[in-house]
């Protein structure tokens, strides 16, 4: 016979107003197995907890019910109190008589609330009688971390984790780390030069003893679970030996072939053997294989001839490596919406219609024009520029429904940069709303208008076309109710931020969620902003959705702190409420394997002494299982139970109703 104690909380008046807690305590005493009951004003307070512990000793309790608020609030508190009083914490159960009872009943006679509380508490008592003591799972933790994506968010996460004393593997798809931030000229709202603040971090990441850089590499496969991931990475052939190369640049100086530079967004050419930009980290070139005459036709090889240390290696092949890590930070960044979306804005056809990142390159001192604002068609300095905000954003019909968030600020910055470089130039900004929430952001936009003379027009642009070497912008100013036509020299579109191509495929490999725009889903939008549904995998930066540099950096650090918490001890304690398969009744239909959203169920073989497979069984990996219960529902032979929520427990509760 069990010895159960039942404690009913009044929660001040939160519960006591509509529930007669004294009566609940009295009634519960009558139930067999209950040896002690008590109601009290605040069960979660220190005196309340002390009372619990004393009761455990005095009445030699082996189980405890607390009828109080939702288990989300204080289950941990009461279970901890139990543990310190010497009973297994999983022998403590909460009956929720606040959120699901007192708060939804307004009957001041307390009748309905009391009746329901009696039911809820009685059900929980019967349930508790079927409880088994559970022990937390302990999982070994590999202390290395993998970061996918070497933009500012990934770099920040890598540096923080490495400074925390953990090893970091930073994998970047392109030949250099730096991401989109490396392309920016200056950054709002303080106007510091992007490269000046970013490159020290890039170099630090390269030199940090705890960081291993793997550029020009892609994650192909992820297996395992929190603390124990196995990651397969393809290191693409650079055709340059990284050990030998000194980064002297003789090869790209002499390479006779040119292609559009991805980094310069087509505003400049690069060689076929190249580094994306002068401050690339590592400063080791790659050969653009599909466009290399030597690799394609066996003719040329100039780069190899001029290379002093003989680092060029046309025989190099992709290498596939497997790495073991305990945690993963995904920081894969964003792209701009592709050009063909903007037919009415002449994008792609009209040379002097460019996007925001192209303008950044024009304004950057290391850019194609050396920081001079010159228009692409004829290299002349534009005397007027029209900036069109929300190009593709907030356009549920032809673009994306969301706001790209950073465009209001960077457009204001563009007008300032333009005015600072072309003193008599006039800028025009078509906007729908100015979204400048943020420290010093509103003042920054007002500065663009008041000090730097940007003409802001409230309206959307209908079309852009060419006429006599000018770019004609036809739009509206809804504040004056006019149609507005501007003969501009250049147009800059603040194109929508979109997720990277292939973001969905990577998410599927990682087992993390994404929304309809293929931005990754955080576990909880407010309280778990960098966690994912898959334990051990964290997010940072614009792979979650549009955000600016300060936010990306904050998220990089946040994800790093989560990784450091996870890797702070050799073992991880995990809640034991996981699924368990009954080996005798499992018929290996694998419905659970398909149903499990976390890939926590494996197919295992039972072998005889000779090593012949005699049976196959589903097996739950406690490290991955979150106890969601999907498999329990899916199992046809009822062979799966959820520890702490077994069928036996649930039926006992239902029968007590």
């Amino acid at each position: 016979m069990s010895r159960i104690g039942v404690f009913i909380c009044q929660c001040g008046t939160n519960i006591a107003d509509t529930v007669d807690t004294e009566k609940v305590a009295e009634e519960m005493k009558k139930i067999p197995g209950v040896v002690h009951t008590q109601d009290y004003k605040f069960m979660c307070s220190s005196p309340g907890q002390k009372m619990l512990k004393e009761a455990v000793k005095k009445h030699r309790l082996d189980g405890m019910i607390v009828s109080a608020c939702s288990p989300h609030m204080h289950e941990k508190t009461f279970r901890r109190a139990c543990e310190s009083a010497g009973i297994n914490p999983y022998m403590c159960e909460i009956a929720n008589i606040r959120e699901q009872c007192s708060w939804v009943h307004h009957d001041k006679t307390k009748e309905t609330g009391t009746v329901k509380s009696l039911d809820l508490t009685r059900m929980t008592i019967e349930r508790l009688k079927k409880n088994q003591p559970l022990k937390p799972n302990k999982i070994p933790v590999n202390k290395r971390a993998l970061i996918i994506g070497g933009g500012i968010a990934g770099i920040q996460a890598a540096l923080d984790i490495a400074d925390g004393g953990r090893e970091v593997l930073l994998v970047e798809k392109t030949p250099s780390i730096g991401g989109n931030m490396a392309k920016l000229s200056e950054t709002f709202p303080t106007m510091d030069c992007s490269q000046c603040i970013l490159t020290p971090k890039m170099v630090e990441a390269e030199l940090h003893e705890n960081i291993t850089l793997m550029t020009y590499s892609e994650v192909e496969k992820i297996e395992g679970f929190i603390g124990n991931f196995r990651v397969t990475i393809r290191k693409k052939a650079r055709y340059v030996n990284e050990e030998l190369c000194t980064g002297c640049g003789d090869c790209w100086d002499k390479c006779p072939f040119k292609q559009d530079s991805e980094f310069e967004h087509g505003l400049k050419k690069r060689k076929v053997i190249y580094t994306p930009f002068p401050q690339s980290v590592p400063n080791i070139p790659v050969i653009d294989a599909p466009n290399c005459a030597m690799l394609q036709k066996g003719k040329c090889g100039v780069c190899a001839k001029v290379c002093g240390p003989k680092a060029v290696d046309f025989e190099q092949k992709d290498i596939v490596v497997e790495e073991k890590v305990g945690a993963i930070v995904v920081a894969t960044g964003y792209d701009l919406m592709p050009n063909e979306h903007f037919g009415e804005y002449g994008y792609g056809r009209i040379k002097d219609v460019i996007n925001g990142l192209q303008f950044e390159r024009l304004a950057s001192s290391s850019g194609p024009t050396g920081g001079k604002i010159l228009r692409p068609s004829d290299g002349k300095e534009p005397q007027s520029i029209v900036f069109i905000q929300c190009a593709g954003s907030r356009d549920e019909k032809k673009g994306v429904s969301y706001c790209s968030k950073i465009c209001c600020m960077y457009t204001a910055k563009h007008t300032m940069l333009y005015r600072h470089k072309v003193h008599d130039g006039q800028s025009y900004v078509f906007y729908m709303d100015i979204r400048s929430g943020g420290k010093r952001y509103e003042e920054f936009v007002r500065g663009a208008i008041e000090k730097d003379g940007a003409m802001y027009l409230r309206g959307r642009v209908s079309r852009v076309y060419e006429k006599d070497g000018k770019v004609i912008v036809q739009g509206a100013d809804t504040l004056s109710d006019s149609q507005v036509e501007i003969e501009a020299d250049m147009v800059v579109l603040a194109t929508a931020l979109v997720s990277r191509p292939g973001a969905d495929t990577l998410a599927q490999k990682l087992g993390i969620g994404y929304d309809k725009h293929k931005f990754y889903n955080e576990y909880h939008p407010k309280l778990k902003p960098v966690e994912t549904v898959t334990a051990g995998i964290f997010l940072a930066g614009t792979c979650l959705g549009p955000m600016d540099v300060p936010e990306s950096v904050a998220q990089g650090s946040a994800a790093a702190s989560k990784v450091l918490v996870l890797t702070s001890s050799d073992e991880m304690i995990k809640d034991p409420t996981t699924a368990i398969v009954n080996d005798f009744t499992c018929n290996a239909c694998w419905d659970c394997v398909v149903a499990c959203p976390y890939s926590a169920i494996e197919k295992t073989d039972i072998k005889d002494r000779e090593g012949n497979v005699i049976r196959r069984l589903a097996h739950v990996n406690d490290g991955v299982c979150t106890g969601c219960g999907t498999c329990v529902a899916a199992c046809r032979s009822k062979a799966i139970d959820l520890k702490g929520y077994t069928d036996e427990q649930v039926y006992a509760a239902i029968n007590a109703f």
Partner: protein
Amino acid sequence: MKIKLSKSDIDGALVTQISKVSGEDFKQCYQCGNCSGGCPVSYAMDIPPSQIIRFLQLGRFELVMEANSMWVCVGCLQCYSRCPKGVSAANILEAARQLSLRKGTDHERIEDLPVSFLKTAPQQAIVCGFRKFVS
């Protein structure tokens, strides 16, 4: 102009009717002005398309019915094809026209039309014009 607003203005029967006839939900419009910016004839309208929708959002049906906008709209659908919210100002002006014509008042009289036009114009212009201007 001063507008006094109350719930009965916003949900007024006439505004609801024009919404129903046009099949357009005025709440969808966030007043970006793209329709007015691209409309080839908004220069000749008393009230440009985006403001027509604004007045309907504010329940000012009578202002919309008094304006010449509905008779100037040519139905080219440029407003709709570039609207980021998928709202058709052309449908709304057509609904206004319909509501006016269904009362039996014609906007044009056949006898007023120039004979040269009637003699040389493509039939489609005449049929279309009658459909838009005559009850």
